[in-house]
């Protein structure tokens, strides 16, 4: 009886119908047509076909995983059933669409769509093929689920890698063509449209092998590394850091102009994220107007170095203006902080949002036009020239500014986090009243958080202003504050590596996904929602550190056996 009770047919039915609905939506959204031109594996399978088949596969997989503990036979049945139902819905769409012209309501419901959906095999053959594909893929996904994880994981990882490499074909081929030495490799893996068959198979086998090796031998290797004497371990760690540093330094030349531009954007948001991380992540002060400090840093540098606005240039050198940019932003942080000291939660959020808007509107205003340039903005902002040395001020050069800035800010934030001040901030975040009862001066602590966070934003703005050469009030809108906040949340609030990961994920990825054109933001939104559902603590959350420490402490601390009982017996 107990074994049977889990075998609920409604689970695969529900999930199958849901999967079918999603497949229909994907079709009606136009993704099938848009992606049909590109192949994942040249001549074998296109992106849109992959998308459709993956949807069926995932439907089956979810149906089985949601069924819990069931007999393998039932699992296979569940997978096949849900796959079948999903493809049934797609077939229904095709038949329905053929009968009634949906094109009036849904732009993408064209005959081209139906052709694609039936894999160009004609109505009956194509539909049959779809249904069979649904059943087969569903069963396959059930099989995959039933496999022991040692076998399953390499297969899944390898499959995902092949798909990712296929999706990013443009990006990778263009980037790698910067390095002539790699051209033969590129030619092996890629054909004009998609991966080569040989290339796809190679990737699959290679990745599967590495993944399998790691899952079997990985812990062994880790233990061996941990077992090494501390001197060797430190040596290993420093060489790893060294390699990373070298790669970071050489990155712009390797990846070319386009990706350097992306890296600049990532760096800009990273600096802002690290600053906001101090305010929101460390001290728990919800600031929705962070873009104000970015704007202030940019405008300060702009005003000081730009020859426009009918005044003589106040400072010719960006380097001289930089400290002022940071200082004025820091000062603005304090000004924002003072009136909001007693506010909490939602109220604090609204007021800071208002502050952000005030700054933007002031920059836009005619009132301050003589000083700030109004809607036309400020142009002619100085580049960071050093004396008379001629430098080509492109995205690659500015990359190094963002890199140094980021390293500096990461250093400061890390040092401060594990200090008395950092603990005070975290206490304020956890429970403000109790923090005060512990002797923490709330005013000083909060103002310091605002000031330090603002200064990082100002730094980012100063570099940004110089890079663009001209700034306009429209660049400093509310959406930037939201993006910075999002990347902190996705990365893991309060965690410094988390901010780096968040910036790469939320700023870097959408840029790299230009393949997907108009669907970029759809995926971005879906990604955010999925993240919050499956891993709300973020990609690299804080507390992980504590658990690691715990293992180390339990071994290191050799407490005498008297510890434990509190009683004064």
């Amino acid at each position, binding site marked *: 009886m107990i074994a049977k009770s889990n075998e609920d047919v409604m689970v695969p039915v529900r999930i199958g119908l849901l999967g079918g609905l999603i497949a229909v939506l994907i079709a009606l959204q136009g993704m099938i047509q848009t992606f049909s031109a590109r192949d994942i594996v040249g001549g074998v399978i296109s992106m849109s076909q992959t998308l459709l088949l993956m949807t069926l596969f995932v439907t089956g997989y979810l149906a089985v995983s949601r069924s819990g503990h069931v007999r393998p036979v039932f699992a296979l049945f569940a997978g096949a059933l849900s796959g079948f139902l999903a493809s049934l819905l797609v077939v229904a769409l095709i038949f329905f669409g053929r009968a009634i012209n949906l094109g009036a309501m849904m732009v993408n419901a064209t005959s081209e769509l139906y052709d694609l959906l039936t894999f160009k095999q004609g109505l009956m053959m194509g539909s049959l093929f779809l249904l069979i594909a649904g059943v087969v893929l569903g069963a396959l996904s059930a099989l995959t689920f039933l496999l022991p994880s040692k076998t399953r994981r390499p297969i899944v990882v390898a499959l995902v890698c092949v798909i990712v490499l296929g999706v990013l074909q443009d990006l990778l081929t263009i980037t790698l063509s910067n390095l002539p030495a790699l051209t033969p490799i590129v030619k092996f893996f890629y054909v004009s449209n998609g991966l080569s068959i040989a290339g796809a198979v190679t990737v699959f086998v290679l990745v599967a092998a590495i993944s399998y090796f790691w899952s079997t031998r990985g812990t062994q290797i880790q233990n061996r590394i941990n077992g090494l004497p501390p001197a060797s371990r430190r040596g290993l760690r420093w060489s790893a850091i060294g390699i990373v540093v070298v790669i970071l330094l050489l990155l712009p030349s390797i990846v070319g102009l386009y990706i350097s531009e992306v890296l600049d954007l990532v760096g800009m948001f990273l600096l802002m994220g690290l600053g906001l991380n101090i305010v929101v992540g460390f001290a728990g002060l919800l600031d929705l107007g962070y873009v104000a400090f970015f704007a202030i840093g940019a405008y300060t540098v702009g005003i000081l170095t730009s020859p426009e606005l009918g005044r003589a240039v106040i400072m010719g050198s960006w380097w001289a203006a930089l400290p002022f940019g940071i200082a004025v932003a820091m000062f603005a942080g304090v000004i924002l902080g003072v009136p909001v000291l007693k506010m909490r939660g939602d109220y604090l959020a609204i007021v800071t949002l208002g502050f952000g808007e005030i700054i933007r509107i002031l920059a836009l205003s005619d009132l301050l036009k003589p000083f700030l340039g109004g809607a036309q903005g400020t142009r002619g902002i100085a580049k960071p020239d050093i004396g008379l040395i001629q430098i080509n001020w492109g995205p690659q050069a500015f990359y190094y500014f963002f890199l140094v800035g980021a390293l500096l800010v990461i250093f*400061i934030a890390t*040092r*401060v986090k594990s*200090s*008395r*001040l*950092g*603990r*005070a901030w*975290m*206490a304020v975040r*956890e*429970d403000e*009243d*109790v*923090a*005060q*009862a*512990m*002797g*923490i*001066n*709330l005013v000083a602590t909060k103002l*310091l958080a605002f000031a*330090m966070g603002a200064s990082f934003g100002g730094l980012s703005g100063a570099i940004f202003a110089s890079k663009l050469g001209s700034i306009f009030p429209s660049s400093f809108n509310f959406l930037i504050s939201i993006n910075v906040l999002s990347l902190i949340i996705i990365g893991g609030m309060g965690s410094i590596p988390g901010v780096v990961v968040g910036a790469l994920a939320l700023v870097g990825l959408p840029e790299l996904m230009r393949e997907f054109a108009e669907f970029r933001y759809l995926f971005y939104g879906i990604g955010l929602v999925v993240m919050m559902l499956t891993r709300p603590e973020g990609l690299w959350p*804080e*507390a992980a550190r*504590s658990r690691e*420490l*715990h293992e*180390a*402490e*339990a071994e290191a*601390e050799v*407490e005498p056996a008297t*510890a*434990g*009982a*509190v*009683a*004064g*017996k």
Partner: protein
Amino acid sequence: MAILTATKVTKRFGGLTAVNLFDMEIKEQAIHSLIGPNGAGKTTFFNCVTGFYRHEEGLIMFQGQRLDGWSPDQVTRLGISRTYQNIRLFANMTAIENVMVGEHPHLRSGVFGAIFHTAGTVREEAQAVEEARRLLRFVGLAGKGDLLAKNLPYGNQRRLEIARALAGKPKLLLLDEPTAGMNPAETVDMMAFIRRLRDELGITILLIEHQMRVVMGISEIVTVMDFGEKIAEGTPVEIQNDPKVIEAYLGRGSASEMLRTAA
């Protein structure tokens, strides 16, 4: 010698007078209990002492200093620490970090020292960690420093809160229902521990308690509060037999057996 004197302290919330012309004197190094039915105003009085509330009338003196209008962090620096009825630890910080926050008023390093790891800061941090470990050992949480506070079992959380309060090197410790939720064995441990605090560290203890066994077992003086006013004060034995106290807890004309159950 009185370490804390409250004279005619009154605290109102709009139309409700939570504490009304309350007098109390706590002798140095005494274990003094404050009891009364729920809603009597005991925690409100604690909050007035620690500066969380501003009392409207009256005077609170600590070691000859007037405490009126001081903010909680200033009061803590003077030497008064407290624990809370519903444990208020810093949940997402580790146990040792919690205790180190308690040490905050006694440390001095600031932003500059933090960023540049100046010699003074490094030394101070090392000492702070040592002291925190020592306090954790003292309350019986040795080796548990790197566990997150929210993952500790209930009894350990109470001990951690006390360790955190002790980190501030208080002369007066306010304990708000320290044995709430404890079974009899744990309660006995806690009673012995509180006695140790006074005997070994010379700390004066002011205790809010509901478990009569604890009150009768370790207090030297008991003050009874009801509806914001002091209705009785004296040794545990005197309190047990005071008809006003019995009435406050059990209503007019009820049996007095409950109060007589001394441990």
